[in-house]
């Protein structure tokens, strides 16, 4: 087997509308996308029925599929001590779920809240707020038939593969699974290959980029210190048939995505369309 590849639109988040991004990437053979949510790219809070019809038609006509929606983790917080912030976060997440439902996207990526590391609330309180938020949003996700892919982030309440797995197993909903980001994991010094093996039973999405452990980045593969080949080996062993997403930041993303894809192909991921045999 080879491992399926999708592409994230992160480099276009603030400057290029989603439709333009997808059409450009489709021109290079890509059909599956993890789309960033932002006012300039895909504004899930302000889409109208007309917008949804237009986007559905584009996806159908071009034979494209959005496999997930992802948002930056800066402005929302499932684990805030302030009830208003938790409510705002839940509301925003519902807008993403509704958008995903309209566009037949199987899941959205969410993170486990944030806190100030210099003076963290007691762990029990932090987890209580996170649990309260998840208990509000998971039933809604079940209702609209869209999954929540809970992602590891360094500043999250659940930054490690082990914690993600504990929570997802305990909540035990078909609408709550895991997105593992190898750069986020490597930055906090996880063995990312072992982490992938650990979360395998609940893993629905994998984010691929590169970073060092000194500076948190989402750089092109090969410029950091992640052993992507070791990750591929585990994915092949467990028979991972979901999407691995190239999620890299670059000023001119297309050539970097193509060259990164070729690097990944040599490790076990599928060949890109149009690539030389």
């Amino acid at each position, binding site marked *: 087997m080879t491992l399926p590849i999708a592409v994230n639109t992160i*480099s276009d*988040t603030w400057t290029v509308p989603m439709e333009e991004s997808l059409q450009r990437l489709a021109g290079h053979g890509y059909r599956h996308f993890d789309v960033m949510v932002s*006012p300039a790219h895909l504004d899930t809070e302000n889409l109208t029925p007309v917008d949804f019809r237009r986007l559905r038609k584009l996806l159908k006509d071009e034979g494209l599929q959005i496999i997930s929606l992802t948002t930056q983790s*800066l*402005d929302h917080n499932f684990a*805030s*001590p302030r009830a*208003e912030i938790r409510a705002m976060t839940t509301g925003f997440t519902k807008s993403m779920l509704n958008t995903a439902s309209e566009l037949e996207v199987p899941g959205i990526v969410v993170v486990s809240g944030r806190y100030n590391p*210099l*003076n963290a609330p007691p762990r029990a309180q932090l987890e209580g707020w996170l649990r309260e938020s998840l208990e509000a949003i998971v039933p809604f996700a079940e209702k609209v038939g869209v999954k929540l892919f809970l992602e590891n982030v360094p500043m999250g309440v659940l930054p490690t593969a082990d914690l993600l797995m504990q929570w997802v197993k305990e909540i035990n909903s078909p609408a709550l699974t895991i997105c593992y980001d190898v750069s986020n994991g490597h930055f906090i010094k996880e063995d990312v290959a072992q982490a992938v093996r650990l979360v395998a039973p609940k893993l629905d999405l994998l984010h691929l980029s590169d970073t060092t452990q000194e500076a948190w980045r989402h750089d092109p593969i090969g410029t950091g210190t992640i052993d992507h080949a070791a990750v591929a080996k585990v994915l092949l062993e467990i028979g991972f048939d979901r999407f691995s997403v190239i999620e890299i930041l670059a000023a001119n993303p297309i050539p970097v995505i193509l060259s990164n894809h070729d690097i990944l192909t040599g490790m076990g991921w599928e060949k890109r369309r149009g690539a030389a045999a």
Partner: protein
Amino acid sequence: MAESNRLSQGEAEPGLYRPRLGACTWAYLWRQGIVDTLRTFDRLGLRTIDIITVPPHPFPSAMSAEERSALARSAAELQVSIETLNVPSTDVNLCSVNEDTRRFTIDQLTSIIALASDLSAPMITCVPGRRLNFNAPSIEQSLGWLSGCLDELIPVAERAGVKILFELHPMSCLPNTSSLCGFLDRYGSLKLGLALDVTNAVFVGEDPVQSILASGPHLRQLHLSDARTGQWAHDVVGSGDLDFGSIFDALKTISFRGTSIIEITCDDPDTGFAASRRLLSEAGWQA
């Protein structure tokens, strides 16, 4: 109101510069209630207070008019002065890409300004918005969103007689003294000022002495804590690498008349504040 902030107890003795010390409630946020915290500071001789506005400490939506009056009474009885209400950066964002988040932040800060007015606090402190360390929008866009929020907030602050201090913070859209003071110069409102946090300044690579000297007329409050070189921390004064004697000299050079707030986090804040106060008093500050 900010002019009262300029009264230094050191002025009672001509020629002797003794900048005022105060304390931030942050270290007690998860340990004890606000009135007990004010009592603790009173006991420690620190009577100019910066209150962190996060539940269970004072937070606008969680406080009735009676509770606000009761807190103001408690402060008066203890003879402590609430100088600033401090809005942590974690959950609000004045330069968010999301209009809803900016609206939410404006509403939050408006309610904090009202609470400050109820508690007779002359100032609030906040961070001028946060940006991702990677994949951020352009700085021009971020500052445009920040200015748009201020256009709404400054009239609110003017009506309430409350000043807004921007804190130097590593994750903000204005993360160093020059960018922050440059923005304050350009925006040009008398209701805006600077709260300079020395460990945040060191963490972004600045010499806090130079930060103070460069702050000029914008500096309204100084936040004091300690940190080891290269670490982002708010440790007990004396436990890190900062040179507080040089910081004192810089304050004296610019004749700073505002409050230096001890803003530390540690496992034993009673001991930490007492140690910080002792060391700073020896260096020339006065509680």
